[in-house]
């Protein structure tokens, strides 16, 4: 079942938290709404579910307009960050809730609950109370409860935000697997890029109430549509530069421009940590190394660029030949292999 939202707008008081957001999700897709906290992603999700009324705009579900419907009539499953399990009910009663309010025969309810407990990896836990479960288990119960009435659409609001890192990793993989089996069209909200890129078919970047870009993880990483997306996604350097004759110059370093700007335009050059080369160049070079850190299988080198007076950092595989002799205090040459440049809007947005 597909979903389309058009020109959604929502303000709380004088603050516009959602600003003309439009997008479409194809049937069976798993989509992530990614962005900084407070950017309006959750509000978009809540408006789709009918938990929040939009000031204007439309929500279409499966070809029918639903924005005038109450949440109970939209057939949308919702998973909350803090589970929102009914604490006075057993796990089984929680999962059966959506079925019992729809007056599904008891035998059928029981069967569906048993199936879902199985699918969720919670067999035999039906009679427990939510307080007897771990965070990861509770969130799986919440997911089972949302899926029980066979919703047209599954919405998850920071679903793994309340569990610790290890469980989060596990739940992620498991959500992807579940989605591949059940195929319910799903949208989840997260502020964690790793999470979004690891499991979503498509990622939508939302910031300050606006949809910045929608695309596959690779599209967003390789072709950021806006400066915000370029800065937000991945580990990046933002350096001051000038556009001249098809090149972008950062001090004495230059790189062919992917985005043409008129000569003399001041630009912000966004360079990913892995699109840089450093090598030792005693007595010359354009930067001085400040710190060399080993982080797992990678080495992070932080340096200071002479002319533009700005920090720059790069990451290399641990055994990279580029690291020969690179140590704190030494002089290095810098090569930018790939960069994107955006004209500076005064005043500087950094």
């Amino acid at each position, binding site marked *: 079942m597909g979903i389309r939202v058009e020109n959604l707008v929502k303000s709380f008081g004088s603050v516009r938290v959602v600003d003309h957001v439009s997008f479409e999700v194809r049937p069976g897709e798993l989509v992530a709404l990614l962005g900084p906290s407070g950017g309006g992603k959750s509000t978009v999700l809540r408006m789709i*579910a009918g938990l929040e009324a939009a000031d204007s705009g439309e929500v279409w579900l499966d070809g029918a307009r639903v924005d005038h419907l109450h*949440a*109970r009539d939209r057939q949308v499953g*919702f998973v909350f960050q803090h589970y929102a399990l*009914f604490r006075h009910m057993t796990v089984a009663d929680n999962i059966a809730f*959506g079925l019992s*309010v729809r007056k599904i025969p008891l035998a059928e309810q029981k069967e569906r609950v048993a199936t879902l407990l199985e699918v969720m990896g919670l067999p035999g836990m039906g009679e427990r109370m939510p307080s007897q479960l771990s965070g990861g288990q509770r969130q799986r119960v919440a997911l089972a409860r949302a899926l*029980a009435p066979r919703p047209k659409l599954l919405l998850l609001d920071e679903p793994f935000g309340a569990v610790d890192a290890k469980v989060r990793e596990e739940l992620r993989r498991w959500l992807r697997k579940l989605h591949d089996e059940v195929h319910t069209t799903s949208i989840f909200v997260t502020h964690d890029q790793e999470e979004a890129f690891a499991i979503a078919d498509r990622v939508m970047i939302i910031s300050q109430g606006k949809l910045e870009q929608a695309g596959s993880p690779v599209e967003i990483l390789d072709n950021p549509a806006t400066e915000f997306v370029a800065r937000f996604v991945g580990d990046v350097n933002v350096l001051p530069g000038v556009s001249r004759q098809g090149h972008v110059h950062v001090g004495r370093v230059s790189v062919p421009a992917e985005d043409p700007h008129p000569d003399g335009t001041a630009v912000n050059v966004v360079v990913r940590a892995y699109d840089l080369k450093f090598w030792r160049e005693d007595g010359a070079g354009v930067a001085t190394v400040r710190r060399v850190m080993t982080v797992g299988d990678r080495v992070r080198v932080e340096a200071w660029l002479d002319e533009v007076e700005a920090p720059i950092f790069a990451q290399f595989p641990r055994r990279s030949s580029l690291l020969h002799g690179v140590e704190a205090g030494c002089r290095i040459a810098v090569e930018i292999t790939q960069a994107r440049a955006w004209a500076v809007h005064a005043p500087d947005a950094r």
Partner: protein
Amino acid sequence: MRGSLLLRLGVVAWVTALVALPVTVLVLRGVEDGPHAFWIAVSDPTAIDALVLSLWTAALATTINAVVGTAVAWVLVRWDVPGRRVIAALVDLPLAIPTLVAGVLLVALFGPQTAVGHVLIGLGIPVAFARTGIVMALLFVTLPFVVRAVEPVLEELDPAEEEAAYTMGATRFTTLVRVLLPPILPAVAAGAVQTFARSVAEFGSLAAVSGNIPHRTLVAPVYILGEVEAGNPGGAASVSLVLLAIALSLQPLAGALARRAGARHA
């Protein structure tokens, strides 16, 4: 060691002298003239009417405040109404005002000499010196109990539970009955038990507002004082014993409910 032993003995002696001793004396005094005298004292028609009046007005006030108190707590916790703090302070006011003053307030507002009282008497619903006044006084002095019992539990309740119910197709009514009420019910009941116990024992405000007319508006605590003053301490002790029995039987119930309410949102 010796200091702590002394402290323990001191505490035991203090509680014994302050609480256990008077209660024991009351029990002994109530039954010292034998079961027959006890029976005569509590089966006195005036005493029975006073006890019955105390019980039903307490039950009515408890029922109303259980509902209204829950609603007040709901509004205080969930709604950002203007003047929320003022309302919260007002709810606690009855605890701060001497209850006799509360009774006087009601007489000043609804007494036969006042304009409001005059109109109400004309409508056939006198408040001061009538049963309506008794119930109103009880509602006033016991208002905080249910509100303060329910409030912390409501604060713990995640609004998302309600929203979850809606997204699963539940109506407002189903959500209220199956999702919202069950977790707060023990707290409501705990507050209600407190309200009832206080209502049955209420003296000050009722002495002022009820008019103390035997068989009509004379409540048990005021009746007991009357018996003491009339030189019948035995009869007073007997009826007191009945009130004491009611209070003591409610005590463990209140404790159990409060524990349950606490355990639920732990």
